[in-house]
């Protein structure tokens, strides 16, 4: 099936700053794609290029089969966008903003609008200036989710929402993709949210894609922590590939091992007779920390 979004080698500079440096991204139709990266890594820039608001300096981007810059208006009828910080007109009520944005997209489903207002517990009569950050975010989310569109571009959409509302958001997104076959690009910092919703994930750093794949695939890239008590003091572990942070004291061993090297390391351990073994699976947090931390200059 054709990809809803395909981006390759995208570059964008703002003056001296290189915001995107050859970014790749592929989002299949009907999937929820997690878009992760530290602050300033280029997530919002990528989304703005996909919306035809920024013009890329180099590389290619295709959105729903069209050119995001040239075909912007036609493409925007088929997508809805929620920014990380929804700003509203102070003298328009939330309900008015939801209707206006829906009408300016592909149209609004009034039944869905009503249902979402209830589920997100939003009073649509308040004026824009009276909403808190979280409630402004809800206005943007309801306007997007109640619109009749194929693609949702969500840029940290749950910032400012309380945990209860975050849960409602997760349910609604899950329904969207299951029942309506919508494609979602979800930029987020909340790992639990990504884990619960996303089929595939792309991690970007300094304007480049560093990992992409399913969560299962990505877990393979992480390390497992092992703590073991052996019958005899071990040897040769330090020289094995994929072993990190090795601590040996007498018969006790603590180490981290790359998931790909798990098998040979375990064989080596069992050859010394394992009396007890504790292993901790890799967590997503570790995965992200590894990519989020700025590497020292080589």
């Amino acid at each position, binding site marked *: 099936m054709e990809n809803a979004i395909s981006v390759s080698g995208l570059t964008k500079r703002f003056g001296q700053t290189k915001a995107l440096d050859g970014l790749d991204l592929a989002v299949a139709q009907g999937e929820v794609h997690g878009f992760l990266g530290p602050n300033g890594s280029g997530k919002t820039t990528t989304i*703005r290029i996909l*919306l035809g*608001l*920024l*013009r890329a300096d180099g590389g290619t981007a295709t959105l729903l089969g069209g050119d995001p810059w040239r075909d*912007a*208006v*036609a493409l*925007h*009828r088929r*997508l*809805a*966008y929620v*920014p990380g*910080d*929804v*700003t*509203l*007109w*102070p*003298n*328009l*009520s*939330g*309900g*008015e*903003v*939801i*209707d*206006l*944005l829906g*009408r*300016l*997209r*592909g149209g609004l489903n009034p039944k869905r609008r009503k249902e979402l207002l209830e589920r997100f517990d939003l009073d*649509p*009569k*308040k*004026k824009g*200036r*009276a909403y808190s950050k979280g409630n402004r975010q809800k206005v*943007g989310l309801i*306007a997007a989710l109640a619109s009749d569109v194929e693609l949702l*571009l969500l840029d940290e959409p749950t910032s400012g929402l309380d945990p209860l509302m975050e849960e409602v958001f997760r349910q609604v997104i899950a329904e969207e993709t299951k029942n309506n076959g919508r494609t979602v690009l979800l930029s987020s910092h909340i790992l639990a949210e990504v884990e619960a919703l996303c089929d595939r994930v792309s991690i970007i750093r300094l304007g480049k894609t560093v990992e992409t794949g399913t969560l299962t695939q990505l877990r393979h890239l992480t390390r497992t922590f092992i703590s073991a008590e052996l019958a005899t003091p071990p040897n040769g572990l330090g020289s094995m590939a994929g072993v990190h942070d090795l601590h040996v004291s007498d018969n006790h061993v603590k180490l981290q091992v790359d998931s790909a090297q798990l098998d040979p390391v375990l064989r080596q351990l069992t050859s010394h007779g394992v009396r007890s073994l504790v292993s901790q699976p890799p967590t997503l947090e570790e995965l992200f920390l590894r990519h989020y931390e700025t590497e020292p200059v080589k």
Partner: protein
Amino acid sequence: MTAFTGTGSLVRLILRRDRVLMPIWMLFMAVLPLSLASGTAAIYKTDAERQGYIDDLGSSPMLILFYGQKPSDPNLGALIFWRSATGIVIMALIAVLFVIRHTRLEEEAGRRELLGSAVVGRHAGLTAALVAISGASLGVGVLVALGMMSQQTPASGAFAMGMAWAFAGIMFGAIAAVTAQLTEGAGAARGIGIGLLGLAFAVRGVGDVVAGGWAWLSWISPLGWVNQVHAFTDNRWWVFALAIVATVALAALALRLSARRDVGAGLLPPRLGPATAAPSLSSPLALAWRLHKGSLYGWLVGLGVVGGVLFGGVAETSTKLLEDNEQLTEILARIGGKSGAADIFLAGTLGMGATAIAAYGIAAALRMRTEEASLRSEPLLAASVSRMRWAASHLVFAFLGPTVVMAVTGLFAGLVYGASVDNIGREVPRVVGGALVQLPAIWVLGALAVAMFGLRPRLAPAIGWGALSLCIVLGQIGAALQLSQSLLDVSPFTHIPRVPGGSVAFTPLLILTALAVALAAVGLATFRRRDIPVT
């Protein structure tokens, strides 16, 4: 810690934040009566001349409405105190804007909450704003008094006049402190404050114009008290006691109201909006109408109706003034004769009105920049709205808005002047023509803001307002400074023909219009290609 702890620090914060703005408006207010005094002293040298001048002006109810009752003595100081009464209204307006800016606006922006969490008493914020406006008003008062004394007027009268000006600011600062407690939004609080100022002006004006059995009306308006000081004639010091009592009472009321409500809340419940949008709210233009209509209505009423009536109403009086003053008649004879005096007056005031309207055009064009910088344009441009359609929705107001306001100004000026000379049929088209002829210059300034919005969005406000300031300087004092014609030609207003009265030269109008179209086109073409948002 008392309820006033931290007031001193907050006063310093206000002074620091307004360190540029405050000296500017203080100086502006101080120069206003001074320039009027030196100009008047040069033309009307004797008491008899001044008495004639006062009688001529005083024969117009329109001017009594604006200035109040005529002074009982024709000395220079009394004449200036009377003639500069509109300055008192400006002083009160500045005080309202100042106090709302430092109280309700701070609260709406959430900054008061931040300060309130520090060692700052409950009353400190409001008190600091009142202390600051009182200090600034007294400063203006002292400057006004010194300025008047420099014109060889008696010190006692100069001091009375300065204090009268100061108390206009102090009293209306206290009134604004009360209105700041009423609503959650600063815009509404400002609106109520300005509305009360308008009411005080109207009540005072009606009392002075109708006089007789209604003269007491002038005494129930704080603006009336300021006039009743009668500086340079009676110097009624006891009137200040009224002003002080009123100020203390209003400040106490404001502090009490403030202490009784929650931070961020208003005493009036916030107004709710509709839960669903009207079917008409479905295009960028419909949204732009919601965003622009408030200021359009304001300009239509403020300049179009009130300004138009004033221009037209005073035009007839201006002929009378000229008949009585030899020196002015002489000057006028050189530039077209006394028969054209009203025409010259109308052409001049319409020209001044046009520079004010240009401010509206620039503000409407720069609304695009505000919308972009606050990221409110993003969701629209991410929906199926093209950049051109979005920009066009705002430009309708930037170009057609001033057109409508200018036409209404001309219409009202023409009607009122036409009625006063019993020839509405002749005057209305002439005066409307004089208003409309200004439009190309107004459009050029608006279009310059559009061009900068496309080319250098961050600089657009500075260049837009800078260009207008330059035009005002060149237009108002350029000739007096004897600047060279090539420098005066920089302002588009220099090229506008003097109508009514003069002949209409179409070439400069066409060139200015073409320039406006070209600038707007450059702005739109570059906006179409550039990154959004530039923040």
